[in-house]
């Protein structure tokens, strides 16, 4: 029997009467289907065991009044219609979008810049890479408290440094205008993680491409634009999607540092959701909020995936 991969070199088989056989899915493609499902089966099993039911339940809860302790009671689309009239819902949405659409592009640019800088073979790069990665290692409540001190208007780090330059720093977390910028700056310190992913992606770019470009007379900008970015585009796409999904769900900072204030300026969407669910015990309302966010993110991601066909280059396709 010829091996599967050799089919292309053989003439098409014909039926007994001499006409062409009806085209059948080749063995290769059936095999691939079986293999495909085999490889993804661990995820599917895990999904049905641990995630499917909770997701389905949360969708169900969004159509109920559910205070966690008593069984949920069906109320139709009331949660959704009332959410539309809830000013805090719109405030939370605005705050979250503001934060996301400023911090994500900034993070992407800085992370790319740093990865390019740190990808050189100069001595000491290992130390620098660790330094830039360090802030991402810190997490949890203790770090949020640390940043509160950094942004302290009187004796904090940032304003002390500004004072050296003769600038009187704003009230940061105590000011409705500056609280979100403070959180954006705080998020930028975590750029090390994104940088690391970029570094990994840069490894898959063959050096020969750069050599060829240099021979053609390309300077650093052309190399960046025609070699690095296209070859790195799968990684950049990954970062863009995951950063956006993550930023739209920002929570801990509001929970630990500002309690949503001042004047609700840091009332982020998931923070409002959490309070609604666990402080006010309105899990149905919170579930509706979760599903609205879900639909927004899904819509955004689908759009980005469609757009990605134009600028993301996959070596294998």
């Amino acid at each position, binding site marked *: 029997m010829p091996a599967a991969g050799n089919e292309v070199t053989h003439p098409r088989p014909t039926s007994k009467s001499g006409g062409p056989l009806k085209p059948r899915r080749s063995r290769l*493609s059936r095999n691939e289907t079986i293999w495909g499902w085999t490889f*993804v089966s661990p*995820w599917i099993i*895990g*999904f049905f065991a641990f995630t499917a039911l909770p*997701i389905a339940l949360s969708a169900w809860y969004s159509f109920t009044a559910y205070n966690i302790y008593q069984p949920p009671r069906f109320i139709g689309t009331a949660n959704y219609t009332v959410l539309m009239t809830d000013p805090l819902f719109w405030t939370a949405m605005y705050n979250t979008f503001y934060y996301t659409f400023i911090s994500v592009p900034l993070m992407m640019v800085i992370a790319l810049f740093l990865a390019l800088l740190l990808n050189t073979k100069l001595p000491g790069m290992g130390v620098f890479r660790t330094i830039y990665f360090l802030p991402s290692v810190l997490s949890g409540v203790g770090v949020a408290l640390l*940043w509160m001190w950094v942004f302290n208007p009187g004796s904090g780090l940032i304003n002390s440094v500004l004072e050296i330059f003769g600038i009187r720093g704003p009230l940061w977390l105590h000011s409705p205008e500056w609280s979100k910028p403070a959180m954006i700056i705080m998020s930028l310190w975590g750029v090390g993680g994104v940088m690391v992913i970029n570094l*990994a992606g840069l490894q898959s770019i063959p050096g020969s491409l750069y050599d060829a470009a240099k021979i053609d007379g390309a300077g650093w900008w052309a190399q960046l634009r025609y070699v690095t970015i296209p070859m790195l585009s*799968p990684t950049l796409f990954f970062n863009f999607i995951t950063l956006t999904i993550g930023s739209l769900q920002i929570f801990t900072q509001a929970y630990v540092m500002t309690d949503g204030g001042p004047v609700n300026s840091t009332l982020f969407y998931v923070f409002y959701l959490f309070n609604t669910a666990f402080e006010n015990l309105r*899990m149905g309302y919170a579930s509706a909020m979760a599903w609205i966010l879900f639909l927004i993110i899904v819509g955004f991601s689908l759009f980005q995936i469609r757009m990605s066909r134009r600028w993301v280059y996959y070596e294998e396709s």
Partner: protein
Amino acid sequence: MRKLMPARRAYVLTVYALLIIGSISFLFPLLWMVSTALKPTSQIYAYPPVWWPSPLDWANFREAINFFPFWLYFRNSAIVTVLVVIGSVYSAAFVAYGFSKLNWKGRDWLFFFVLATLMIPAQVLMIPQYVIFTRIGWVDTLLPLIVPAFFGGGAFNIFLFRQYYRTIPKEYSDAARIDGCSEFRIFWQIVLPQSKPAMATAAIFAFLWTWNDFMGPVIYLHSPQNFTLPIGLRAFQQQTGTEWDLLMAASLLVMLPVIVLFFFLQRYFVAGMSMSGLNR
């Protein structure tokens, strides 16, 4: 030292200058942590801020370790984290292979579905998931924190590997198929070894998240002998205020394993270490 051409020298100097300036701003908060960890309590909020405390209060570290059962929690954290890292990295690499190197109907829709699971805020899934684990009797064990990692390792990691795999030209796996290799062998012996940067990255992130995760341990662990380090760190934050010096000392200690791991895994995403097999 080799003599450098002027252009090259300018380039090198610029790179170092930029990196150093950036480093200072990135390091500041950490230096403050170290400084606070070494401060006697009276100097914590002094104004102007004290950068170099005197005397250096090394006792803070000892006090921090004795504040809660540090080594017991460390052991639990280590068990959970190591297992989760192994489970996440290998199962994500495995699952992602199915989403990238093989062509089959419904593949991309299913992948988007996987990605979509990242888009639901975990807060609304917490309680139903907790109920599931209660029904199978896993509450107050480390199992709910470990087992799910072996089933794909999370959409983030699957996505990471998939993107990385797709930068590997198809010729490698095609050639192996022609030679009669099973898909599993292609995955294990050709694709995976070329994915060390992705593996290192996934390992670091899995380690980081699990090591620092407190929500999972808080709701699933009810006996102090199972507690993990993040729960221990909470002990410094009381209603009456935070023991800053001890918290910073403990946080530094808790951070160390991650930093060490990162430093050693770095070489996997540095030029030259990831090649294997065929010419590129």
